[in-house]
């Protein structure tokens, strides 16, 4: 296991604190007064339907999207490239023609922003092997990244993000296009990483159900507003109704949660398909 730099941040201090963040695109408010914190070792789900502002929020945290409000990483405003943050982007299309093996992609996580050609030092090889092992990707380390399955690619990208020893890991819809088994494997892996390495994990998803067992807290986004806290406290009819601004039903069915938004906010959208369910 890669030791984390525990002297850098004490374990109780928030690794990420988002305070009153707002983003407007022209006249449209994408995010409004979004506030929440993530502590080391916590697995947080960033839940919301498509277009709710999840990707925008992650881009704000990464410093790629200008916003009002404050984002503190490790207690400080973020600087240009923050080594404390690892990132796995959304719906990454990997071309099989790109001559990069899984181990090359992980290596680029270490020094992909540097000038020059990577030298195959023993230290670099060891770090890459360690990161591949941590995500159980050693078996396909020498395969072209574009030839791997969605779940395998996701594991390699997690290793790419982990190798620079971040304290906060941001993942944008990593479960999209995965089969149920791969979904479980990726969630288990991330949950273990969060616990073992004391890393704060923030994972966006439109469906919270695959995350229910692993998730410590939830940040629920609707129409640019966010509610955060322990899953059971946030995913309640009264909390989500306040968030959406109208009545919302939360239905617990066996081990699944269904959120029935009940009406369409945008009048230009067809409503004949009945209530929209954000599972």
């Amino acid at each position, binding site marked *: 296991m890669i030791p984390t730099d525990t002297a850098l941040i004490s374990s109780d201090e928030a690794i990420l604190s988002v305070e009153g963040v707002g983003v407007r695109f022209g006249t449209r408010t994408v995010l409004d007064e979004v506030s929440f914190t993530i502590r080391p070792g916590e697995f947080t789900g960033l839940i919301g339907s498509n277009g709710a502002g999840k990707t925008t929020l992650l881009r704000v945290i990464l410093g790629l999207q200008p916003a009002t409000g404050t984002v503190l990483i490790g207690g400080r405003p973020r600087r240009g490239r923050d080594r404390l943050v690892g*990132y796995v982007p959304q719906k990454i299309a990997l071309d099989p023609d790109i*001559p990069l*093996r899984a181990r*090359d992609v992980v290596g680029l996580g270490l020094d*992909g*922003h540097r000038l020059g*050609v*990577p030298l195959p030092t023993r230290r670099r090889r060891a770090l890459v092997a360690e990161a591949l092992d941590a995500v159980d990707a050693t078996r396909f380390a020498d395969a072209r990244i574009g030839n791997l399955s969605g779940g395998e690619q996701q594991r390699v*990208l997690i290793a790419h993000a982990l190798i620079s020893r971040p304290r906060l890991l941001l993942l944008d819809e990593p479960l999209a296009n995965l089969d149920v088994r791969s979904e479980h494997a990726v969630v288990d892996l991330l949950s273990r990483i969060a616990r073992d390495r004391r890393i704060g994990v923030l994972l966006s998803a439109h469906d919270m159900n695959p995350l229910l067992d692993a998730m410590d807290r939830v940040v629920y986004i609707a129409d640019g507003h966010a509610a955060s806290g322990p899953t059971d406290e946030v995913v309640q009819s009264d909390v989500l109704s306040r968030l959406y601004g109208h009545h919302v039903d939360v239905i617990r069915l066996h081990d699944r949660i269904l959120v029935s938004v009940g009406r369409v906010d945008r009048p230009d959208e067809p409503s004949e398909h009945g209530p929209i369910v954000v599972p």
Partner: protein
Amino acid sequence: MTGFWQGVVEPGFFSSAPVHSAVAVGAIVAVVSGMTGVFTVIRGHSFAGEALGDIGSTGGSASYLLGINPLIGFLGLSVLGAGLMSATGARTRKARDVETGIVVGGALGLAALFLYLDTTRTSTTGAPVTILFGSIFTVPSSTLPIVAVLGGVTLTILLALYRMLLLTSLNPGLAAARGTSVRLVAVAYLALLAVAVSLSAITIGTILSTALLIGPPATALRLTDSPGRATVLAAVIGVASTWLGILLAYDSDYWPRQHGWPASFLIVTIIVAGYLLARVFGRDIRQPAFG
């Protein structure tokens, strides 16, 4: 053994000054084109590479009218073309291809005018063939130092940006999250591409420069999964094809009932043959390499 070499290499090959110059210029150009071309292929920029060569031919043909070194004309116009392509800010590949096509069309129109003037107003009646199809044996010896310096600078910048080029090619989002300016890398890359294409324009001509830029990398990418090995292999294949083409072109003067084959034709034919061999006998890259 001596007898064998006498059969393969016709007399005077190693003592001929045009051959020396061709071998040196050919090697530099092949290395620069091969290594730059790896990124052209993986970034899906093959059309841009072809376009920059075409745009360069406008400058090349103007050079004959102005009486300056054609390399300066090629370089000036292709770098300008790369600048224009960067400035359009096309977001999608389709939009980029359309804008590139428009710029190329305009540039080739001008090239047609300049080539016409070259042949009618100046004494350089061979200019069109030299510009479009190259003439590696008539590269002036004064051009060699310029080629060496440009080649060296291009390779230095390419290797400096190597990791950022790989990461931005894999996924711009990953690179941006690490503080890399994806746009700056893209602009720098197009400038390198413009120089690489200009260099190969003076050796095998603008029309065939794409073959040297795309062929060896495409072959290398069929043979290896490692980015470092692919880059080196593309350079090696480029140099080997160019040298073999030069040798055969020289020898062809001595072949029975022939008065010589053009080097450009031979080089490009060898490159294409190499690619076809790699396709037939190489491992299918779309199959997983592990069991």
